């Protein structure tokens, strides 16, 4: 018995999304600054989650090195907008482009690895960047850079930037999954050798995913550091980003579009709550992640879907 939520009739779904979008766009007008800043974080983390999920959940590329692109994006923003005085949005875009270029150049080497080799190979790349940036005079070694150009924005501006980035990330994944390569991706996720037999070019499809995620991660990194306004190599290239994103996608449900959304909401709220327990918040996070994998390895959405057949943001095509 399959329940179809929010899809009674043809207009239910679009209407629902219009209402949600309207609520998000008007949020600063009817709620306080605290709620706006929380929503901003949720949107940015959701965007990261979507990108990581695109790779790990669909393309089978479990990466532990996405912080490489957060760092590149953040440093592009810092260097181009403060040192060279470039427009902030141009700097963020450059962060995406540099991430894309970097991803393109390391992909031939990284894509020779598969499974855990890829996971740790990508991590070693990120750690190498961390060491490189810590020893690079151009970015003031490990002393960090004050992103003074970001001071001109208030919380509401930052929220709208995050909204654009978040919606763009979700839209990119949604459109990609609804396209022909989306079909290929889902076929790969379910059975990669069967997919290859049917003529799907695994390497190309994976590479496309990797490049898209890298570009978007660079942009997200820029937006994130617009909010942080101070960048350090050890924070920008920290494995902590991957910890957060993995946690979100796992508890939300890997390989689903709703997973990163639910995960981001839970992660950000959970983190706000854990601020009361400084020092042990990460420990609680680790334990929670383990418990969820033990109890529900498919995450909240995966388990819900298996039990009831609910899909909210389905990338499937409905026939008839």
């Amino acid at each position, binding site marked *: 018995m399959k329940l179809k939520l929010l899809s009674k009739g043809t207009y239910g779904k679009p209407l629902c999304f219009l209402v949600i979008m309207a609520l998000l766009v008007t949020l600063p007008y009817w709620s306080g600054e605290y709620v706006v800043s929380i929503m901003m974080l949720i949107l940015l983390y959701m965007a990261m989650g979507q990108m990581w999920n695109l790779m790990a959940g669909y393309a089978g590329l*479990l990466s532990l090195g996405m912080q490489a692109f957060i760092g590149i994006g953040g440093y592009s923003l810092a260097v181009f907008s403060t040192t060279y005085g470039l427009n902030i949005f141009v700097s963020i875009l450059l962060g995406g482009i540099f991430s894309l270029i970097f991803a393109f150049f390391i992909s031939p080497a990284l894509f020779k690895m598969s499974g855990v080799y890829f996971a*740790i190979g990508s991590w070693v790349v990120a*750690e190498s960047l961390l*060491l490189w940036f810590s020893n690079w005079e151009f970015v003031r070694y490990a002393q960090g850079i004050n992103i003074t150009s970001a001071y001109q924005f208030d919380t509401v501006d930052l929220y709208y930037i995050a909204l654009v980035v978040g919606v763009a990330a979700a839209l990119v994944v949604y459109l990609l999954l609804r396209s022909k390569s989306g079909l290929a991706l889902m076929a790969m996720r379910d059975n990669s050798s069967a997919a290859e037999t049917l003529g799907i070019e695994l390497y190309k499809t994976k590479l496309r995913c990797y490049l898209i995620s890298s570009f978007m991660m660079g942009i997200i990194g820029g937006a994130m550091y617009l909010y942080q306004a101070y960048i350090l190599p050890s924070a920008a290239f920290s494995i902590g980003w991957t910890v957060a994103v993995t946690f979100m996608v796992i508890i939300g449900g890997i390989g689903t579009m709703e997973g990163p959304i639910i995960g981001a909401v839970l992660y950000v709220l959970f983190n706000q709550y854990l601020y009361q327990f400084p020092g042990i918040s*990460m420990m609680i*996070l*680790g334990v929670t*992640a383990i418990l969820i994998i*033990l109890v529900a*390895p498919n995450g909240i959405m995966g388990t819900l879907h298996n039990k009831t057949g609910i899909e909210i943001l389905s990338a499937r095509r409905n026939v008839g």
Partner: protein
Amino acid sequence: MLQSLVNGILLGGLYAIIGIGMSLVFGIMRLTNLAHGDLMILATYTTLTIVTSVTGNLWIAVAATILVMVALGFLIQNFLVNRVLDKGSEPALLVTFGVSIFISNFLLKVFGADNKIIQNSLASKNVISTEHLSISAMYLFSFLVGIAVILSLHYIMQKTYFGRSIRATSCDRMAAELNGVNTKRTFSYAMMVAMVTAAIAGVLVGSTFVFYPSSGTQYLIIAFGVVVIGGMGSLVGTLVGGIVLGVAQLMGGHIFGSAYQMLSGYIVLLLILAIRPNGLLSVGARK
């Protein structure tokens, strides 16, 4: 130059023990234990705590640490990893990731972020000390312990029933079970042996270098590098991998300056991975 080469080789012995537990676990259950580095540093802190607050004797502390780590290895394998191992490699990988986050933050909470070192009599001594070459007693000792651990593990794996059951399980789990091997228990034993090596590695690392609660990450990458260069699951390869990585780091540090020491190790690792994705000594593709 000669100095860097010799030190690199000696350091390789230490790196080999860091990597060997990970190699063993991967070889038998196809699991990359992302908590390996943190477990090792946990052993370092355990030894330090026992030495400073319970007994002054380092050897007793090491023995106690090994016991603690073996018990911990059993608990982790039995109650966490064994439960998710049948659900594919990703849940198990992520469980060890969770353990890793927990341990490093636990250490940070209990011991603070300051660097520590295990005091010992070997650290400041040199075995050979000339104008061109000096060999630190600690480096040499670590190297010898590394060789000893690898040789004894090799013996155990080849000559004992326990070793045969491990090898059988890693070759073909179903066939091993049909022949009466309790594979889940074998997994637990393998994890316990890996924890013995992690404890020894932890003590050696803690006596040679300063360490922080976050050092686990760095040693996890070293362990991974060693295992990957040598080929996952190969014991002799682990020693080769350790030496390659150790020499790469120290030669890189010698040529480009000590700031680039770790970086040159990582780059050599990435190059080897890109050229031979299954390791230098691996026989064919093992997936």
